[in-house]
């Protein structure tokens, strides 16, 4: 028994030591032109990772290397040449376009304000929404609902949904959140369970446990987001330095896929709104 114990202990250690030494050898492509380095927005993680997977399946010699450091950091990386594509969940600034960047909008994402299903409010104007999120209005009565206190749900600092929501409304750093949740799903769950709650989420996570509000009278649908009548939306940009036609063949084939019917279908399948 003792013998067995010691032997197995030695064997275990041996396996442990050899296990450590065999590190996973990552295949580094010698030919840089087959590599597409994408850097940028964390909100576009699902899209970019999905694209990386699709490209890997489609052709074995194109390697997409995604990094998620935030929209602005991605654009910096593109300008300094450490990335081929900057993924940005906001439109490019004029100064960035002047530096030769091209804004290729690949998809749109709608941000929908949601309430508890018991809430009778149907639509909010921009001013009302700003007043609610800055704490000036704290009862649903003041915006045409029943006498119910408003509970403000938001996302944590650094979240892409939060920054674009606050940016569109112009309420950056002025929001008086009652709860800061670190997941979209958590916002839906909390709003579903708290009667006076209000929150904001991406269009694709809406379900029947919550009630989507109209914004300035317009209902959030794929059509109203695409034609721009629903303004609580943000573009998903994959910026390049110069036109797509001037990029490497690998990058060109990535964009060719995105703008193909198959690519548009893929974008719809992950809950985004295609531009076409």
């Amino acid at each position, binding site marked *: 028994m003792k013998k067995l114990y010691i032997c197995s202990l030695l064997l275990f250690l041996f396996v442990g030591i050899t296990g450590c030494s065999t590190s996973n050898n990552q295949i580094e492509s010698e030919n840089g032109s087959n590599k597409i380095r994408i850097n940028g927005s964390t909100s576009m993680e699902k899209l970019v990772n999905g694209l990386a997977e699709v490209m890997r399946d489609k052709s074995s010699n194109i390697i997409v290397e995604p990094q998620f450091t935030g929209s602005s950091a991605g654009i910096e990386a593109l300008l300094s040449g450490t990335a081929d594509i900057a993924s940005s969940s906001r439109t490019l600034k004029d100064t960035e376009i002047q530096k030769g960047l091209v804004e290729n909008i690949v998809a749109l994402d709608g941000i929908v304000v949601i309430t508890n299903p018991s809430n009778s409010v149907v639509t909010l104007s921009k001013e009302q929404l700003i007043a609610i999120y800055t704490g000036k209005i*704290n009862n649903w009565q003041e915006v045409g609902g029943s006498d119910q206190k408003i509970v403000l749900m938001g996302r944590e600092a650094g979240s892409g949904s939060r920054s674009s929501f606050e940016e569109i409304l112009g309420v950056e*750093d002025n929001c008086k959140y*009652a709860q*800061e949740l670190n997941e979209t799903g958590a916002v839906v769950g909390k709003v579903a369970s708290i009667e006076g709650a209000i929150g904001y989420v991406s269009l694709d996570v809406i379900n029947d446990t919550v009630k989507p509000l109209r914004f300035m009278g317009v209902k959030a649908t794929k059509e109203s987001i695409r034609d721009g009548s629903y303004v609580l939306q943000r573009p998903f940009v994959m910026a390049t330095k110069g036109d797509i036609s001037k990029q490497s063949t690998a990058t060109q084939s990535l964009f060719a896929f995105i703008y193909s019917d198959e690519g548009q279908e893929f974008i719809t399948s992950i809950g985004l709104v295609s531009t076409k």
Partner: protein
Amino acid sequence: MKENIVSIISNNKSKSAVEKSAAIIFRCCAVISIIAVLSIMVYMLIFGTPAIFEEGLVEILFSSVWAPTAKTPSYGILMIILTSIVGVFLAILIGVPIGLFTAINLAELANKRVRKVVKAAIELLAGIPSVIYGMLGVLIINPVMYKVELWIFRDSTTHQYTGGANLIAAVIVLAIMILPTLINISETALNSVPDEYRKSSMALGASKMQTIFKVVLPCAKSGIMSAVVLGVGRAIGEAMAIVLVAGNAVNLPLPFNSVRFLTTAIVSEMGYAQGTHREVLFTIGLVLFVFIIAINLVLTRILKNGEKNGK
């Protein structure tokens, strides 16, 4: 026949080799924990200090504005530190009487059957994953708190409604979570009081309760103190349960405010944090680490004093 058997253990030469190598292996295993502690310490210092140099220690520890992604970011974690201190203190205030009295019941009063049932319940309580406590908090405590909140602040125009996610909810969850630690260690302390003390006390005519409170409890004092300190350690390090019930907005730790603890500050923002924001989150980890070290130092001090008194 016997000489023909080759064994790595009974053979004298290989025996000493095995003895030696086994000793080395065991020593290496013992060193692993030391390496782990040291490397954690070194890494916390490496990752936690840059933000202190960038923003200034005073600015981080004593500013009350937490706006890491603002245009002019501010990284004050005073409210977060205060919340952790106040929250843990309140949890101890609720948990200690319950835990101590349960321990007294188990060690001094309960019959075998009751003890068996209560012991089993406590062991189960200790084994439940912390996130389950949080889920129960979301399902039970938060809705109740929301009703209480609506009733208490029905006429207030300035109160911010949190939907039941507040300091009290977090404190209740923490108090329940530290019960097993408090009960188990206090009970061990009470059991280690020699039976002669109790018998002598009874022989002198003291009642059972007099014996417990005047003889047994003072004797077990240091053990109970260490139970409290370990309870504090458990409470201050808890993240998963309270991230679900506390609301996570940075506020002054008042009972009905949505609050953020040191642990939940790291948990909720680590995902997307970049640059200085990320570094400050490591600094929060460093602050938490310092708290835990302080608690451990207090604990060793208590145990040392207990030993002295015992001898």
